């Protein structure tokens, strides 16, 4: 039976969502290629297989809503509006990257798009999202904050402390647990005494839901309800999005191995969220093979353009090394902030910024 959203949404909205999913997929395929070529360094966690979660979850948001996430963040950043060029340039560590080349794969940010990271410590972002919800309520706004995390994060104290505060103070935060089955190489049932992540909400009297994270329409419908609850009643929700990661934990990890078999992965790929959505749209007469080919060609071109942009963007200039350690150098103070106004520590005292001297 076709999902009610098939009819409720405008055809263009469907095509827009499909395009974002395809863009995310092609972007990550390109990231993998560039990583293999040594153009991307460090840790690099790909989103392939989970596209329906980000696209379904962020589709109901307004531009002035906030997103906070963990380190598997490239596609979420793009879906929230950061141009693929800037995300790719960040992966390449270039000056035109969304974090000026200072963050890398795990640390995408955009104040303009209200995308608040990109955090690398498991569960460390959850209290931050709770604080964004606090600030929204403090100022009497009706925005919402979506907080993504992997299922492994829910065993951390930060998760439980945050849910308690959010429920206690009625904060407009939607906590979305992307249950992709494995915390790195540890299967969920080997890590939690309780299988249903969504049931953890009971401990905090928090509304919760389980969403099919492999079906973008079901994902969207579940999040729509939570967004309405947050916006209208300033109530948080915990959503467990059941999905699957088609790649290894990061680019340094194998796709399959001791913790799952090749067959497991191949079987999961039969439920590819992009293929599922394409089938739904074709069946409803909203998509033709030609249109799909055209869209995929456009998306591939956009990704190639992003990679070329990143390739041509220069590395951050040397002076950026010391920039932005601090927001403000107190003008009244005599300062010895290591590196600020002292680009060369070898210069010693003489290297300190004479302009910073107040006496």
């Amino acid at each position, binding site marked *: 039976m076709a999902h009610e959203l098939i009819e409720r949404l405008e055809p263009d909205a469907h095509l827009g969502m499909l395009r974002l999913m395809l863009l995310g997929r092609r972007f990550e395929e390109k990231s993998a290629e560039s990583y293999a070529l040594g153009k991307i360094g460090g840790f690099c966690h790909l989103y392939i297989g989970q596209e329906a979660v980000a696209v379904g979850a962020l589709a109901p948001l307004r531009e002035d809503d906030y997103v906070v996430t963990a380190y598997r963040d490239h596609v979420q950043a793009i879906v929230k509006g950061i141009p693929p060029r800037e995300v790719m340039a960040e992966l390449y560590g270039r000056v035109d990257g969304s*974090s000026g080349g200072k*963050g890398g794969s795990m640390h995408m940010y955009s104040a303009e798009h209200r995308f608040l990271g*990109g955090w690398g410590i498991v569960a*460390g972002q959850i*209290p931050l999202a709770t*604080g*964004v919800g606090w600030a929204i309520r403090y100022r009497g706004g009706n925005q919402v904050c979506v907080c993504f995390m992997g299922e492994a994060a829910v065993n951390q104290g930060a998760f439980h402390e945050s849910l308690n505060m959010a429920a206690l103070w009625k904060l407009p935060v939607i906590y979305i647990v992307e249950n992709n089955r494995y915390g790195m190489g540890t299967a969920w049932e080997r890590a939690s005494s309780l299988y249903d992540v969504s049931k953890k909400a009971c401990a905090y009297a928090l509304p919760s839901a389980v969403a099919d994270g492999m079906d973008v329409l079901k994902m969207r419908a579940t999040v729509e309800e939570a967004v309405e609850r947050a916006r209208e009643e300033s109530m948080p929700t915990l959503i467990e999005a059941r999905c699957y990661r088609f790649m290894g934990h990061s680019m340094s990890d194998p796709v399959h191995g001791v913790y799952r078999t090749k067959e497991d992965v191949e079987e999961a790929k039969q439920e590819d969220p992009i293929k599922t959505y394409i089938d739904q749209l074709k069946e409803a007469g909203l998509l033709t093979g030609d249109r799909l080919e055209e869209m995929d060609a456009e998306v591939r071109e956009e990704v190639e353009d992003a990679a070329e942009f990143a390739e041509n963007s220069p590395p951050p200039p040397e002076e950026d090394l010391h920039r932005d350690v601090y*927001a403000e150098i107190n003008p009244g*103070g*005599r300062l010895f902030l290591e590196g600020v106004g002292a680009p060369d520590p070898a210069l010693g005292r003489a290297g300190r910024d004479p302009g910073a001297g107040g006496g």
Partner: protein
Amino acid sequence: MAVITYREALNQALAEELERDPDVFLMGEEVGQYDGAYKVSKGLLERFGEERIVDTPITELGFAGLGIGAAMVGLRPVIEFMTWNFAILANDQIVNNAAKLHYMTAGQFSCPIVFRGPTGAALQLSAQHSQALEASYAHFPGLKVVVPGTPADAKGLLKAAIRDDDPVIVLEGELLYALKGEVPEDEDFVIPLGVAEVKREGKDVSILTHGKMINVALQAAERLAEDEVDAEVVDLRSLRPLDLDTVIASVEKTNRAVYLEEGWGFSGIGAEIVAQVQEHAFDHLDAPLLRVHQVDVPMPYSKELEKLAKPSVDRTIEACNRVLYR
């Protein structure tokens, strides 16, 4: 100038900044109904309401992180830890998030937040409740760290910290809350972060110190004066940013120095200052720098052992005499 306690000075600073800026709020354990575990926030709930004076569950990591998130989108939280010992639970948020976010976001986001509370030993609270933790926070670029030792410094530095756009760690002295001193009443009285103060002028030896220990240093200086030794006492006040100019000027004047601190010596603030002084004023030194600090053990409970573990006036005098070769 009014003579008030260190506790009242902090209370005034909070009240004035809450009044001045509606984005400022105070959050922590027992800060509201209970008026604060050490009564620093006395009367603030009644005056500013529960939206701005917020009692939290015992959830240090949670509310520290909540504050950082709120700061990222423009509020100016003051997060009170009942003591800094409990803040160790929140270190992931302070160290991995607050200290890094301005840099990692290439300046797109700032973190104008204050983390404050008492630090250091009181009396017989034993190992888990007696730690002076400033050296561990001063280690991290991205944090600012201040350690006020007088009521006036407490007010001026806390106000500056609240107005600052970076995360500021304010370590108050648990035994200082009842200390009285003159405090300016001007509502724009702030002490810029990164400005040390010579608390006592002298020419023979510099006692460099910060926080609660300035009182120990001043007592040591008085006793040394009876022995015709003229000691200078320099209070760093801020550890990050560090006012090295004032430190170096003092050493260049006296040519001899002792660093006195409440915390442990190993990787302590004194260790850093010794390194800085030898880098920048080696030729002015007539003796190696010495350090006075807590002995290298967790704080014992027994009154007698605790006394032995803590830095003291006697040990400070002894160190001064050694650098004077007396």
